[in-house]
């Protein structure tokens, strides 16, 4: 059982959340064809890291907001949570993404 600390609602069971995906991907600037590779990367390519990973979850049974979660994919430990704009890696000093 995972407990995710929603920044708005407080600590909740992970069953209230829906996994959305990798939070490290950045949307390309525009949609023109010169950016095809960037769009292909954004839409389809995902890493499968062993260790710390920034993810987006939606609190679908609660406030319905998107929550950024820093999770260890090896131990399932949830190290930090925040709003989507937050940089959780910087918040947790000394921790780095292992890709």
């Amino acid at each position, binding site marked *: 059982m995972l407990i995710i600390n929603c920044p*708005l*609602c407080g600590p909740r*069971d992970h*069953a*209230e959340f829906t996994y959305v995906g990798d939070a490290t991907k950045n949307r390309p600037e525009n949609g023109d064809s010169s950016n095809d590779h960037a769009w292909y990367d954004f839409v389809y390519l995902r890493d499968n890291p062993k260790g710390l990973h920034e993810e987006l979850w939606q609190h679908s*049974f*609660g*406030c*319905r*907001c998107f929550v950024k979660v820093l999770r260890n994919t090896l131990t399932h430990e949830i190290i930090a949570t925040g709003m989507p704009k937050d940089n959780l890696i910087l918040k947790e000093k000394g921790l780095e993404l292992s890709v």
Partner: protein
Amino acid sequence: MTEVNTSKNSLRRQSGLAHVINYGQFGNVTLNGPSLFICERHPLTILQLDTNKSKTLTDISNLLNAEFPHTTNTCKGDDERRIIWLGPNRWLIVEPEHGCLQTLIKNEFNSSEVFLTDLSHGKSTVRLRGRKARDVLMKGSGIDWHLNSFGADYCAHTKLFDLAATVDCRDIDVFDIYIARGFAEDFWGTLMDAAAEFGYQVD
């Protein structure tokens, strides 16, 4: 062809729990009487309001003569008009059905400023009251129901008995639970099972 009955009574809102509610005392009721009192609140006007314009919200607040809660997971108001925080820029307005709330707001505000969704037909509301009310809620959800964390005028949007529910703490031992109408009968049955060991009365 069957004649359509358009009399006022035929259009009255029907309760989603009408077929399952049995009135009386049930479960482990002791000589001290039941520890829980359960009833349905019906009919209610339940309106979801979305707006990200603070001036518009102030104007609506003045129009309704009601204050909107801005702190997360809190509510304001009384049984006549209750406003529940649902999420950022989103609230639930609940009042006994008069049939004019939505029209009142729509007439005054531009539809691009305020988004209204009438949920009156889609929600069933159950009021749980009594000294064992928190014990029943504890059986259905893992959130902290202790008085220090979840006192009067707090609310939670959570999974209660595996169903999406909004729980509004009206007073120390009084809770209003909003549940999707389609799951209301299932919820009612589970609630009765959870309450049986404490002894309950359905009003």
